């Protein structure tokens, strides 16, 4: 790998620009493929460029048999995102485990006294009202949204925006009873049952989690299953 390729890869990642590295597996010559352009020492045919762009969407590397030989296309995408609404107790382990699992984590809570607490130091915190925050963060198919506040004013505001987005996972903390009441309120706001079926509640896999850390594990486990089984980016 020539230095220019390594430097371009690193700066694309720093800028959050999706890119794929194409490597000829015999010669080692390489090219970079961006969403709108490609280039490098390795000449790529249209099929290989298309395969590289496909890998950038699925976030999975692949080997491609080209007329010139085998080429490995290796996507380097910005991390998938986890948006956590509510700087509550469970958020403390959730933002950490989420970051460890590779997510770019953003914590949303308009209540300064909650969000500015020490456990969240070093994490990206947005103190706007959840609907404004979520509109601005614009969840995409590589984003998970989890609400934890238990406060309908805050949770419902976030869920409304999340449900209108292509977020791959939406979860909301609360008991079965709380969840039923939540769905009832959202239905009144005009969401159909098939929309509401996207909301995982009670949130997380049923592993008998009790402590905040265990609940965070169950939530990340459910997000992982949704993302990997469905093969979304």
């Amino acid at each position, binding site marked *: *790998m*020539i*230095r220019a390729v*390594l*430097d371009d*890869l*690193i700066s694309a*990642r720093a800028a959050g620009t999706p890119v794929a590295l194409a*490597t000829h*597996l*015999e*010669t*080692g010559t390489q090219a970079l493929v961006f969403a709108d352009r490609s280039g490098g020492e390795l000449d790529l045919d249209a099929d290989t460029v298309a395969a590289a762009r496909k890998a950038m969407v699925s*976030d*999975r*590397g*692949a*080997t491609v048999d080209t007329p010139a030989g085998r080429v*490995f296309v*290796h*996507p*380097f*995408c910005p*991390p998938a995102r986890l948006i956590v609404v509510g700087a509550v107790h469970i958020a403390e382990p959730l933002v950490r485990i989420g970051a460890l*699992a*590779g997510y770019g984590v953003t914590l949303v809570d308009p209540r300064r006294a909650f969000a500015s607490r020490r456990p969240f130091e070093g994490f990206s915190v947005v103190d706007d009202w959840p609907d404004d925050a979520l509109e601005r963060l614009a969840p995409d198919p590589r984003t998970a949204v989890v609400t934890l506040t238990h406060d309908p004013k805050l949770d419902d505001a976030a869920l409304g925006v999340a449900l209108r987005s292509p977020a791959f996972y939406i979860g909301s903390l609360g008991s079965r009873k709380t969840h039923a009441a939540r769905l009832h309120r959202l239905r009144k706001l005009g969401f159909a049952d098939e929309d509401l079926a996207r909301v995982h509640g009670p949130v997380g896999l049923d592993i008998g989690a009790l402590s905040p850390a265990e609940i965070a594990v169950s939530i990340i486990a459910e997000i992982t299953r949704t993302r990997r089984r469905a093969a979304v980016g």
Partner: protein
Amino acid sequence: MTGTEDILLCAAAWRKAGKGVALATVVSTWGSSPRPVGSQLAVDDRGDFVGSVSGGCIEGAVIKEALDAIETGRPRLLDFGVTNEQAWEVGLACGGKVQVFVERIE
């Protein structure tokens, strides 16, 4: 594809510091293999490394090839699998197979 960023940054920093550096990347897997396609390992000319391409089963062999790649500049594609009695030494105990591409950072 987590952790890849740090590996590239580390490789770049080592290179900047004047070290010889090679990068190993998992390019394909069959069956159960511990690290997914795209997993990377950076190795310097003293054999220090960051990242992983398996659960630890083949790192030793990959590092050996990486050191040779640093010296000769020749990229190579390595095949690992449970193929013979030596499986426990240079193969994957899990029964999977992986292909690892090793290249020098110029």
